[in-house]
Structure formats: C-alpha cells, structure tokens
C-alpha cells in the first residue's frame, strides 16, 4: 500500500515548481477556509461568503489590468465588500439576504467591466477563466509567501478570538452578558472571511471559492459534536480535496493522453463527493446515541 502510494507520487510530482506552489497556496487556502468556513456556516453566512467570493473577481480582474499581484486584488475587493456588507446590515436576519444581494450585484458589475477591459485592452485572453475558475498550476511562485502570510494572519486572529466567536455563534445574548461585543466580533469575522475567500479565489477561482469555504465546513459540522472537532475535520477534508485535486489534475495528463483537466474541477468534485458521503455517515452515527441516553435519563436520574 505504502509503496504504491509513494510510486504514485512520482518524485517528479513533488519536485515540479508549479506543483509546489499549488500545494502550498492551495493548502493554505484550504486550511483557512475550513476554519473560517465553520463559523461562517454556523452564523448562517454561507450566502455572504459566496457573494464575497464572486465579488472578489472584480479585484482579480483589476489586478490583471493594473499589473499587481492577484492576491492583493482579490483581498482588497473582498475586504471592501465585507465592509459594505457590514454597513448594509448583513447581521440583521431580515436584511441579510438583501444586503448580500446588493453587494453581489454591484461587485459583479465591476467585475464585468474589468474583464471587458482585460480582454479588449491587454493580451491576457485567459483572464476571465483564470479569475473565475482559477488555475493553480499557473500561479507564479512569487505569490507563495504572501499567501502564507495572509493565511497565518487569519489563523492567528481566529486563534485569538476562538472562544468569543463560538459564544457569539451559540447565542449573541450569552456573549454580550460576557462583555463580548457582537458588533465587533461580526466585523472581524467578515474581515477574516474576506481573507479566506481571497485565498480560495486565488486557488480555485472566485466563483468556486464558496465550494472550498462551505463544503468542507458543512460536511464536518454534520459529523461532529464539538467545535474543535468540527474545525479539525473541516481542515482535513479541505486539505484532502485541494491536495487530492492537485495530484489528480497533475496525473490526469497521463490519464487523458496529454489533456490534463483543470485542478478546480477535481477539488470541487472531491468536496462534493465527501459531502454526499456524510449523509449516510450521519445516519449511521446518529442512530447509535439517542437510545441509551434516553433510557438512562428516564431511569437513572433519581
């Protein structure tokens, strides 16, 4: 088994420069998305996360025009959009979808404009596909360190705010009696969400960013009973999907006789399959617990 595994991972695979970059950037995106995705799903901000991803395409396409790093473009626009969401009232249940929809519309309009300029004024013909659907093997290796730094910043912020975040997800009133400001927690969460989405947009494309953000987190939440386990599970699923996707895309060159398929396809496919698998798994694990506890409680409480 192990021998097979090693032989599959041709030494070539790990030695190739683009693969190296893809593994690092994609891996940091997977970890950050998994951790922040769990809170995003629990707060009911999945749609806002998706919208931030779509909107960040405006930044990605602008970065082609301006000749700056795409990460800066994605991150800048995602952060701006996050602040706009906050301003328009994303945390009020009624206004949440409206605020998200408005920001999404405005951002995609900008993105349409920038992509039009990309195609007409510069020679970057593949810009639209790269921005929207990502191409991890085409990432320049100079982006490795900025991506890792952004990821570390997001993770440190998350590590610091972990407990207040959980408490405010569980119940805002319980949190505020502890002196936690739900307002500031919400703002910081949206900014961290922007970081996660920017990293995801860089690796799997802005349209597919929400798959990496929501999928692993949602699958893991279904299966776990503890917040830490949910986060760990999401990290594992995310890494499995991204690294597995990179490897499959690399290998698909040999599978399909010289026509390799896009990484993003494999990543999203793996996430989707894992999510589907959690449904029967949840059913199997869910059946075990209730019976003994109910009996215990009925008889043993005295």
């Amino acid at each position, binding site marked *: 088994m192990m021998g097979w595994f090693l032989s599959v991972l041709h030494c070539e695979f790990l030695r190739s420069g683009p693969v190296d970059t893809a593994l690092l950037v994609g891996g940091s995106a997977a970890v950050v998305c998994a951790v922040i995705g769990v809170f995003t799903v*629990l707060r009911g901000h999945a749609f806002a996360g998706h919208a931030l991803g779509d909107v960040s395409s405006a930044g990605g396409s602008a970065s082609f025009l301006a000749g700056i790093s795409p990460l800066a473009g994605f991150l800048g626009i995602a952060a701006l959009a996050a602040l706009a969401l906050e301003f328009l009232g994303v945390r009020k249940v009624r206004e949440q979808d409206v605020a998200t929809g408005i920001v999404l519309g405005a951002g995609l309009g900008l993105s349409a404009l920038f992509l039009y300029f990309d195609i007409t004024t510069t020679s970057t013909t593949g810009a639209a596909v790269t921005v929207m659907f990502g191409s991890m093997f085409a990432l320049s290796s100079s982006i490795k360190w900025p991506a890792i730094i952004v990821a570390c910043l997001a993770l440190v912020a998350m*590590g*610091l*705010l*972990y*407990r*207040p975040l*959980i*408490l405010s*997800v*569980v*119940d805002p*009133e*319980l*949190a*505020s*009696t*502890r*002196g*936690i400001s739900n307002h500031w927690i919400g703002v910081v969460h949206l900014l961290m969400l922007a970081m996660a989405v920017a990293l995801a947009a860089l690796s799997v494309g802005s349209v597919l960013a929400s798959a990496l953000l929501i999928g692993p987190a949602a699958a893991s*939440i*279904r299966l*776990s*009973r*503890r*917040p830490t*386990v*949910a986060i760990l599970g999401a990290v594992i699923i995310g890494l499995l999907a991204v690294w597995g996707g990179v490897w499959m895309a690399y290998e698909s060159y040999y599978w399909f006789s010289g026509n390799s398929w896009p990484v993003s396809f494999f990543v999203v496919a793996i996430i989707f399959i894992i999510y589907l698998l959690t449904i029967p798994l949840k059913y199997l694990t869910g059946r075990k*617990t*209730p019976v003994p*506890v109910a009996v*215990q*409680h009925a008889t*043993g*409480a005295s």
Partner: protein
Amino acid sequence: MIQQRNGERRVHMPKFEESSKVALAADVPGPATEQPLLAVDDLTVKIGTRVLLQGVSFTLSPGEFCGLIGENGAGKTTLLRSLVGTQPSPHGCVKVCGFPPSRARGMVGYVPQKINFAPDLPLRVCDLVQLGCDGHRLGPRWFSRKSSEAVSRALAAVGAEQFAKQRIGELSGGQQQRAVIAHALARQPRLLLLDEPLANLDFKSANELARLLGHLTREHGIAVLITAHDMNPLLSLMDRVVYLAGGRAACGSVEEVIQSESLSRLYGYPVAVIKHSGRIMIVPDTEGPQPDEACYMEPSNGRNRERITK
C-alpha cells in the same frame, strides 16, 4: 380557604409608597452594615420615547432569594438586562458589589429567557458549560484541572451529567434550560439572574431546580433574582418579591405580595392564593367572573370571528 376573588379587570399598581416603605424595612434585618450585593437606584430605561422602566430602586443582600414578577411586557427581561449591562441606554445607578455591571461580569450569572440552539450546532452541553467559565477569554484554551472541575460541578448541580456529552441542539427544551443554568453557574457567580428558568421544566425538574437555587442561596450566599409566572415551586424559598407594573417597581415581603388581591391587581386577572395544610398555591381563579371572554365568543359577527381565526 380562598382568600378573596377579584374580578376587576384593569388595575393600577398597588400602593407604591407603602410597599416601598415595607421594602426599606425589610432591608434592615440582614446584616445592616454589609454592603448590598446588588443596589439598584432610580433606574430608568427608555426605548425611543417609550418609558419601559421608571425610577426602579431596590437592593439585594447576599443569600437573598428574590422573585421578580409582573405581567407579560411589564419589563422584567428589560430590568434583568440592565443589571447585566446589556440593555442599551439605562439611566440611573446599578451597582453589583459596588461595581457597575460592565465591571462585575465575573460576579453575575445570567440565564436568558429564550435561547434557540440550532440542531446542528456542534457543541456539547459540557462545551457550553466550559464556555461559561472562559468564553470571554482570548487565545486558545489550555487544559486546566480547575476549570474542568468547575464544569463538572456545574453539570452536577443541575443534574445534567447524563446528557453532558450530547449535542445541545438535540436535547429537549428542559434539558437545554438546565444546560444554560449550568453555563451561568460555571463561573461561580455571587449574583444569579434567571429569566423564566422554570418555564420548560417538568414538576420534578422545576422543584429540583428550586431546591438547588435555595441551596445556593443558603449555603453559598449567592443572591438570586428570578422571574417566574408559575411561582408555586418558589413560594417556600422566596424571601422577597419585586413586582413590576406600569414601568414602576416595588418590593414586598412574600406574605404581602402573594395574596389574591395584590396578585389579581398586578396581573389584571383574577388570581386566587390557596393555603392548604401549610402550603401556599397560586391558581388562576377560573370560577370568578371572567373579564374578556365574551369578545372571543361572539358568534353573531362573522367578520369579527374571521379576523380572530386568521
């Protein structure tokens, strides 16, 4: 047995001046020199132009068990929120052990009236209680024996050990209620504010919880301020009652407030207090004249009925 029936519908607050005097008198018997655990002085809460509470003043000493009653919308929850410092824009002075609420959070445990836990929330009961110890802290949590002991003590106190390892969203309402109380107890507060903690509990749990609260006040000197519409499980424990009506508050001793007349006036609905074999019971007085029944029953007006059934 039934002391008095009162069919009168609308009501004004019972004699404030007199009750407040009684309250002042009732404050003295405790160790008078001791600083009160909770001192509320001339608290006024407005939302917009609406005055929810006006000039509320009372104190609570360590070990005191105090009920907070009033009809729906009287402002009980608002008052409790002002005491934990989450109510926006209160005026007046609230002191917990001499500190303003925002600086006394470690000393106050609060159980909100209503929490909706999402069924898929990946959080066990013991995790929630652990958050009660340290949920406001920054940085990762390192294992500490002291806090894990505090957690198991709080779980044991409310009898939640059996379901401590279950997801909180998958429990029954009463089990969730107990978990939240354990959350509030985890930090070993000196003042416990409970908003309708008995609302979801069965007889046994309600009485056990009442016993637990009584134990906490007697043995640990915790002061308890509790709202409840069904006060029966608490009657033997309460030292005092604060009652709210029309935005104003007054305190009274249990004997004084728990009477058919004053309760009926307070709720605007006939209530009977029954004393039987040394116990007191509060029941809605369904035999007396019912105030508003007629308007729901009116069969003649089809339009009216339609509006009601809608």
